[in-house]
């Protein structure tokens, strides 16, 4: 709770720093504030505190995901020096909006009441609608913003309708009260679950509600796309799982088949389309769709270890995405576009970048010795424990397809040559963040126990 207050106040503080032209203070203040927020969140560990008549429950689940969101934002801020300045002169607003979005994300992972879920999702989404349209002169950015807004508003309608039906069936917004209401057989409740599923699926880009993803990722500035792929996706899945775990778990026999179908659709839609992409950003967008499919596997297996599996997966995915999007930003800035050919010869000019990107895509693909391998491993494990062998087989086939398109980048970097490529200059922020990410991907890839037993 304290961390939520810190993040909200920090957002306003950053906004006002920008208003009074203390541009140099923006980043230090944000970083300090975020560290404080992460520390305050960690203080709530094991306390299981309820706040404001059971509106929020800061259990270990909420604390772990809050810290993950805050630290990921911190990594993204580490890359942001001199980034927004190039796009616009309202730099402070972008930091403030990302912090507002983070506050929404913290609400989404710690809600204990459907009203809070709605407010959290809205705070997060509204900030993102604006952030997607940062580049005002760029039609693609405008299109991304408008498309995201219209589709998002529509999806929110579904979410709200579902909430209303569930309230009608159970008489409460409180997750514990819903879980103990025993109204799982009523058609009203079931319709509500399905509608909420539609709304949430949109937010985490699960097929067939994913169509906005590639266009919005492509139109948004790289750093914002990175934010969407990491913080937003983590918050969305944490909220999805929390809702289904704490409120709808008893009714899982009813919704499991729907989630299974969504899972298959998402896996195939994401992976097969990603194969045909020749721009790296779009490839990452489609791969983010496919990762939503793997994460759905864990939701299917609601139970004790599902939250742990989702946590490991989102940590691995966030780390790898930060690195992949970060290098994509560098390359497209230096070479003019994010076409896969632009990565040719990167291994010769920038061995460190090539190595980091290799590690990142290996982690995304789930190659052993990287964090991503254990992400997939735990997700498959919980799904197998629930008897979804056929789904896991399909998911493994998809992971194979994934390896094919992820390796296209590695081949471009190491096997292909680009005669007139020059070395890309890194600023200290990039160097630091990428080093941290490389270290963590290896660390969690070799000692998965560090994160696997948190929850």
């Amino acid at each position: 709770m304290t961390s939520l207050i810190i993040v909200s106040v920090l957002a306003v503080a950053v906004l006002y720093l920008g208003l009074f032209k203390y541009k140099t203070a923006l980043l230090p203040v944000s970083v300090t504030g975020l560290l404080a927020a992460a520390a305050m969140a960690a203080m709530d560990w094991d306390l299981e505190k309820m706040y404001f008549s059971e509106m929020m429950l800061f259990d270990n689940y909420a604390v772990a995901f809050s810290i993950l969101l805050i630290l990921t934002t911190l990594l993204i801020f580490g890359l942001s020096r001199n980034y927004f300045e190039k796009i616009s002169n309202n730099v402070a607003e972008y930091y403030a909006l990302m912090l507002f979005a983070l506050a929404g994300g913290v609400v989404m992972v710690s809600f204990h009441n459907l009203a809070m879920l709605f407010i959290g999702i809205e705070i997060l989404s509204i900030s993102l609608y604006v952030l997607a349209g940062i580049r005002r002169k760029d039609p693609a950015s405008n299109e991304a913003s408008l498309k995201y807004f219209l589709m998002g508003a529509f999806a929110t309608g579904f979410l709200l309708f579902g909430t209303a039906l569930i309230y009608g069936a159970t008489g409460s917004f409180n997750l514990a009260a819903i879980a103990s209401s025993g109204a799982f057989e009523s058609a009203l409740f079931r319709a509500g679950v399905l509608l909420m599923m539609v709304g949430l699926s949109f937010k985490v880009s699960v097929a067939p509600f994913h169509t906005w993803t590639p266009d919005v990722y492509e139109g948004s500035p790289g750093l914002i796309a990175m934010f969407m792929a990491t913080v937003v996706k983590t918050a969305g899945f944490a909220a999805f799982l929390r809702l289904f775990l704490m409120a709808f778990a008893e009714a899982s026999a009813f919704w499991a088949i729907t989630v299974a179908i969504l899972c298959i659709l998402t896996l195939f839609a994401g992976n097969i389309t990603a194969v045909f992409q020749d721009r790296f950003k779009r490839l990452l967008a489609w791969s983010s769709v496919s990762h939503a499919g793997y994460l759905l596997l864990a939701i299917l297996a609601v139970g004790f270890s599902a939250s742990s599996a989702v946590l490991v997966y989102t940590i691995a995915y966030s780390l790898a995405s930060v690195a992949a999007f970060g290098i994509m930003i560098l390359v497209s800035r230096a070479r003019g576009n994010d076409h896969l050919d632009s990565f040719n010869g990167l291994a010769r000019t920038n061995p460190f970048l090539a190595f980091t990107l290799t590690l990142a895509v290996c982690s995304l693909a789930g190659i052993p010795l990287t964090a991503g391998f254990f992400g997939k491993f735990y997700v498959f494990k919980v799904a197998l424990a629930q008897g979804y062998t056929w789904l896991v087989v399909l998911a493994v086939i998809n992971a194979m397809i994934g390896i094919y398109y992820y390796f296209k980048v590695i081949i471009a970097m190491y096997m292909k040559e680009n005669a007139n490529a020059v070395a890309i200059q890194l600023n200290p922020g990039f160097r630091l963040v990428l080093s941290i990410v490389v270290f963590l991907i290896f660390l969690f890839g070799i000692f998965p126990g560090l994160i696997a037993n948190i929850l």
Partner: protein
Amino acid sequence: MLLQSSASSYLPILIQGIMALAFVGITMVITHLVGPKRRTIDKLTPFESGISSVGNARSPFSIKYFLVAILFVLFDVEVIFMYPWAVNFRELGGKGMIEMFVFMGMLLLGFFYVIRKGALDWEK
């Protein structure tokens, strides 16, 4: 203690609304029926300060109006929240006061931001 009231308490308001609408309607109809009419071309062309009208009325206009309108909606929603607070002012006491002031403070910060940013300056 829940306060009692029901939809039928709105009957007087409904009657008043009907009366008001009926008055407007009847006045319009009667003036049309009673008043003299001279339908010449000069009388029927729209009057635009003596200049003959060009194009039609559906021309796109500046985004500035929209910004003002959307800010109005935001503050409108804010003010709506004050109704339930105001009627319960006594019961909520000091705690309610603080709660409302936090809410208002947040939005006043927003208002100050809007002013400082010059979003309401028409000439800029």
